[in-house]
């Protein structure tokens, strides 16, 4: 059965691009345009989200808050989370790691690198 990945980004281009790469490798993809919608989707879905890919700068609820919220939930304490962002500053990386991200990829990225990271984290 296909593993389900949640892609959270306010850029429709990034969502489409990442979804294309993941679906091409057989993953099932659920998308959200910000942290708030991501939490709503996770709460209402029957199937398990096995990995989350999230941007940081988003309206309503940003990536840091989304990760913190997920890490407080019993069901997602261990779910792998990849931050996908154009923020490359030292403070951002440090904060990303502190809130509980599993990995951090800087935009622009190669889809092969993202797919490799997804595969590694889902092992």
């Amino acid at each position, binding site marked *: 059965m296909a593993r389900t990945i949640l892609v959270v980004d306010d850029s429709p281009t990034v969502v489409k691009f990442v979804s294309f*790469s993941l679906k091409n490798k057989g993953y099932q993809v659920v998308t959200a345009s910000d942290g708030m919608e991501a939490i709503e989707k996770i709460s209402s879905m029957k199937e398990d989200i096995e990995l989350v890919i999230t941007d940081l*700068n988003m309206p309503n609820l940003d990536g840091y808050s989304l990760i913190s919220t997920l890490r407080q939930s019993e069901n997602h304490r261990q779910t792998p989370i990849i931050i996908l962002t*154009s923020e490359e500053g030292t403070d951002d990386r440090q904060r990303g790691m502190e809130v509980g991200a599993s990995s951090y990829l800087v935009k622009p990225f190669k889809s092969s690198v993202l797919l490799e990271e997804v595969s590694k984290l889902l092992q």
Partner: protein
Amino acid sequence: MKIDDIMYSKMQSEIAALASSINEIVGKFKKLQHPLTESREKVPKATEQLDKISEQTAQATHQMLDTVEGITQREEQVKQRLNTLKEKITSGNLDGAEELIDSLIKTAEQTYEDVYTIMDTLQFQDITSQQINHAASLLEEVELRLHKIISVYNGQDSSMTEECTDSEKAKRVYDPHADFSDKKATQADIDNLFARKAES
């Protein structure tokens, strides 16, 4: 009261009124100084962002065109090889057919990789969109400062303008450092940081 005293008293009150006007004018100029300085700094930043967009859009477009050129050139070779293969099959002479098939498979794999290169390059849309939002936000701030200057001149309350523009600005979410350049070195640093975390 003497006439001189009356004159003196009148002059005194006129001078006091004049001093108060001068104070008010100085205060207004002081208020103008800050928005003017801020505006002077923000316009070049916005210009810099717009130049970056133009440069990086061109870079991404050239990269995609080069890749598409490579694909179309290979497609010509694919056609020729398929024709040769067809002739071999028709004539029943299959010498070299296997090599031809292998080369066609390699070409197909290369084209698949090229499609991903184009997809990767298309991320410039997201990056430039963030750069445009940053430039727009800087120009909005300049607009706000200019509104403030007009308000000060007209003796109006400038906080109203600020509140209004702040609510507009809140709609823009962007990374001011978004850049299309290669991030290999940065990514390696980040990977090391997360690897250390995983080990600890």
